């Protein structure tokens, strides 16, 4: 089973890029973009594992 999340997200971004170039319908482009955006955001949230010991 393929389980490499970063690789899968790059695959998703590749698919989004092809949709952006080839598809004219704006809502399809936007939906794909936000799916990619959400996937990258969730991976970022996974890697933010602790609150930094800093005062702002």
């Amino acid at each position, binding site marked *: 089973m393929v389980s490499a999340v970063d690789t899968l997200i790059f695959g998703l971004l590749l698919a989004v890029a092809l949709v952006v170039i080839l598809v004219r319908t*704006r809502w399809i482009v936007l939906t794909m973009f936000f799916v990619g955006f959400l996937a*990258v955001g969730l991976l*970022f949230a996974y890697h933010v594992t602790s609150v930094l010991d800093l005062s702002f």
Partner: protein
Amino acid sequence: MAETGKLTVFLGSTRIVVPEPSKPWHRLMGRLGFWAQVFFLVAYIGVLSTAMFYFQFAQAEMPCPLCILQRMGMMLSSLGALFIVSHSLKKTLTPSGFMTGLGMAILGAMLGAAMSTRQILLHILPGDPGYGTAMLGLHLYTWALISFVVVMAFAGVLLTFGTEFLPIAPVSRWARGIVWVVVVAFVATIAINLVVVFFEEGFNWFLPDNPTTYELIGFTPTPAPTPTP
């Protein structure tokens, strides 16, 4: 309703004006708007290629998970320029599509800026050597934050002008050919990153915090990097 050089439509109480680029300076700004988007793409292709081919391959520095995420942020942001450039070349770009592209660029840059800010703050304390090699006195994640801020400023400036910088694609075959090469190069950049990160990650769920080995083939590059967490 047609005015001189403009098409005006009323949607409810909103007046939508689509200018026709009739004056020489209008066409100049349109061409500038097009090539600015192409430059945006070329700049990020250059940044992503330098990070991969120079720092990762030549310097044997393995990118950390946040580094990979920042590459994704740059790609997300560039998708906006890709949308504008490719549809402008195909003559399918509308004023609202232009705004969609700039919005995508801003959103991608915001996410990328959050990632690079996180990595800067991880290494902000005095005495921390940072992650990886510095370039011109700044680490790559700091340069990444600068690039994301530049993208947001770039898109903001274009949006304040409204439709003045609506791209006008070139008509000559060689110029259009060069731009299509840039579009293909951007797609290839994503594809190459996909392969490289697959070699680095293997079939593990996620990248380790301090990667030292290409997990797929069990290869540790020499000299092995000694990054600080």
